């Protein structure tokens, strides 16, 4: 067989980029395929308008000037679900987005492109809660620690700096009786600055009249555009927010062993049978998203890193062996959103400033962890996405119809519209908002299936179904009360609980669970030479914490396993 690479990786996002760099460093020839565009690479000078080159394999192809042109800091341009540069869709913006069938009032928010959903992510890097892993996963938390440490050192991960919005949250948490957590291994409740994969603020920029326009220093500038794409830094490899686009990908290119092909949507996993190995993976079929050309690529090992929806979809569309857990066990952290609005005088008294500006500082820089329940974390961002998350998303309809009961600690529940919306948004600079991530249970009924009739250019489209359990709802309600208590103790005048529908998919995990679809090396139980290295292989929801760091730690471990198993001669 003619091999195109030692290893093909499907998806250049949070997990795939890690495997590419790790294997490239160990001397493997890697072909990294990505369905979406490649921003900041001179081989694609107009990534949304022209096809550009087939591939890139040199660090010298990267250009910070091009990245700064591509990432405009305009939230509709970058993050509109239908037309944005980060949408789940093809590079060509003359075409519509790609399809998911989300059963319900929610939505899925994932990115296509080199960097995957780390393009828009907040860069939050907490570890899993040990109690959600130990004696639950088929591997121990202790076994993950050296891989956590390696990823934390590589990205790198730092304690986020506090601006007014974080300080208000910490103030409220302390007033509510909580203490600060000191260890990254969280075993009891408390608050802490986010461990973020964002370079430290450069102290030279810390003056009132600093010229940010001509800033060429390395480090975060607290400009609040994390979600819309960070381009702050003198080179692509030193951009402040450590999306894999600017961290693991440039490191992978630097090894000289990695070739990256964007605009390449893998449509099938190819397998062969051998008397010695049994069923094994031999390569992939792909389709070019610009031209529609199809082709085949062969490798000794293939790694699936397309994310919690696309990895099971690809397995099912490839008609790989039946497994009752393929696509199943989906957790999404059953999100919710709570916001507090503050008077200037109260802020002045409690904080010493009269505004908390959601658009200043890192988008998500403070968190509260509660093993057994989940997570509460602050967030702030540009106003279009902010208002649609806070006020336009609810399972409960319009707030006029919802009268909170006596047990609620919040004043309003549900969507907000009309004059009330304008009034609340007038208070945008005095709003502190939090996201809630519930430690939701694994349920085999939740997951990804294929629509039996509907296809797009790449195969049958995925159907995403999720219903929380009774226990999940109780946990989320408890977290909402805890969040409201913190916001109120910080001095909130008005508290709004959005009560999000259950089918909002940002953290999409455990749809190809380790131990059920793969062995403990993350190699598919039923198809040799096929590995999984994205959020889908996680065993559960980690207790509630943001999944990226754990996926990246596991992907680092999986890379070692691949070399040991198939390339150790």
């Amino acid at each position, binding site marked *: 067989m003619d091999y195109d690479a030692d290893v093909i990786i499907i998806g250049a996002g949070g997990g795939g980029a890690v495997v590419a760099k790790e294997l490239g460093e160990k001397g493997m020839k890697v072909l990294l395929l990505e369905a979406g565009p490649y921003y900041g690479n001179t081989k694609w000078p107009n990534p949304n308008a022209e096809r550009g080159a087939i591939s890139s394999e040199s660090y010298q192809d990267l250009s910070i000037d091009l990245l700064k042109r591509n990432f405009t800091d305009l939230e509709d341009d970058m993050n509109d679900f239908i037309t944005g540069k980060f949408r789940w869709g093809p590079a060509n913006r003359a075409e519509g987005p790609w399809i998911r069938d989300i059963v319900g009032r929610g*939505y899925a928010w994932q990115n296509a492109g080199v960097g995957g959903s780390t393009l828009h992510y907040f860069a939050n890097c907490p570890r899993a809660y040990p109690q959600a892993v130990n004696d639950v996963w088929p591997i121990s938390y202790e076994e993950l620690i050296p891989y956590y440490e390696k990823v934390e050192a590589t990205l790198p991960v730092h304690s986020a700096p506090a601006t007014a919005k974080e300080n208000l949250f910490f103030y409220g948490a302390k007033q509510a009786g909580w203490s600060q957590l000191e260890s990254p291994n969280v075993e009891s409740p408390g608050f802490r600055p986010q461990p973020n994969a964002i370079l430290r603020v450069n102290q030279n920029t810390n003056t009132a009249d600093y010229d940010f326009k001509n800033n060429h220093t390395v480090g975060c500038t607290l400009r609040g555009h994390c979600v819309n794409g960070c381009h702050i830094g003198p080179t692509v490899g030193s951009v402040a927010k450590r999306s894999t686009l600017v961290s693991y990908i440039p490191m992978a290119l630097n090894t000289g062993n990695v070739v990256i092909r964007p605009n390449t949507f893998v449509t099938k996993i190819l397998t062969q049978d051998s008397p010695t190995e049994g069923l094994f993976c031999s390569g992939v079929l792909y389709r070019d998203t610009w031209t529609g050309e199809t082709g085949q690529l062969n490798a000794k090992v293939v790694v699936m890193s397309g994310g919690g929806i696309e990895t099971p979809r690809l397995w099912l569309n490839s008609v790989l062996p039946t497994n009752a857990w393929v696509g199943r066990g989906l957790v999404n952290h059953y999100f919710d959103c709570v916001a507090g609005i503050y008077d200037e005088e109260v802020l002045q008294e409690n904080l010493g400033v009269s505004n908390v500006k959601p658009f200043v500082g890192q988008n998500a820089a403070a968190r509260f962890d509660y093993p057994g329940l989940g997570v509460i974390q602050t967030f702030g961002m540009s106003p279009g996405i902010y*208002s649609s998350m806070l006020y336009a998303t609810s399972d409960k309809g319009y707030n006029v119809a919802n009268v909170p009961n006596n047990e609620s600690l919040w004043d309003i529940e549900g969507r907000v519209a009309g004059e009330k919306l304008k009034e609340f948004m007038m208070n945008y600079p005095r709003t502190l908002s939090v996201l809630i991530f519930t430690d939701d249970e694994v349920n085999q009924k939740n997951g990804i299936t294929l629509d*039996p009739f509907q296809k797009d250019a790449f195969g049958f489209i995925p159907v995403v179904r999720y219903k929380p359990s009774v226990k999940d709802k109780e946990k989320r309600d408890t977290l909402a009360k805890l969040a409201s208590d913190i916001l109120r103790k910080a001095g909130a005048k008005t508290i709004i609980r959005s009560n999000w529908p259950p089918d909002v998919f940002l953290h999409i995990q455990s749809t190809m669970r380790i131990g059920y679809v793969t062995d403990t090396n993350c190699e598919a139980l039923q198809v040799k030479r096929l590995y999984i290295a994205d959020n889908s292989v996680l065993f559960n929801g980690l207790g509630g914490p943001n999944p990226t760091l754990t996926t990246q730690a596991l992907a680092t471990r999986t890379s070692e396993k691949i070399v040991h198993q198939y390339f150790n001669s």
Partner: protein
Amino acid sequence: MIYGSSTQDKQNAGEEMHGIFRIPNCSVVAQNNHSQQHIQITFKAYVDTKIPQTPNLAKQYGNIQFFGALDFDTDEFLTYSLNQFDIPLADAVADLLDITAKQYILVNGSNVTKDESMYSSGSAFASLSPNDRTNALNLLIENQIDFTLLPEPFQNNPDFIHSTMSNLNRLTYMGYYSEWFGYGSTRLATPNDRILEFNPKSWEQIEYPGRSLGYPLL
């Protein structure tokens, strides 16, 4: 009230998937009997319900707070967004709103004040007062509309209805509070050709200074 449909029904309808919405391919293209003007009137009424002009807020907090979605053409953003798919959706959504309004009027009879000339020219949703429009939307969200009377692709398809109405709400806020209106004369151009000509006035309403390259940590 009948809602929901069997897999068999959907199979018979021979649906096709386009964009992020499921759209039965049977008759959406054929149903192009509403003018652009009708879509505009209906969507103006919708966005006005969500983000109205607010003279009260203007009196209390300054003239800038008067402006609402009608002033910043947010209805155009909805039409623009909904028509990005292979089968444009704006027409069907305008129909959905009108039929919902008609059912609301039927249920509430004399309690509803409507603009007769608007109603008889086919713009039932826009003929209602803002309060009645909100109530009509609530009826839809709470599954109290007869789904068999809805136009394709919404007929007997509550999942698609709810996901569309949620997305419509999010799109409205995104269109109003994002930079979109600031694209000015290029706001309806293809995404690659839009140029920010000014900061939209919605940012002034909420004290958002716009894009930044940094803030000092003082």
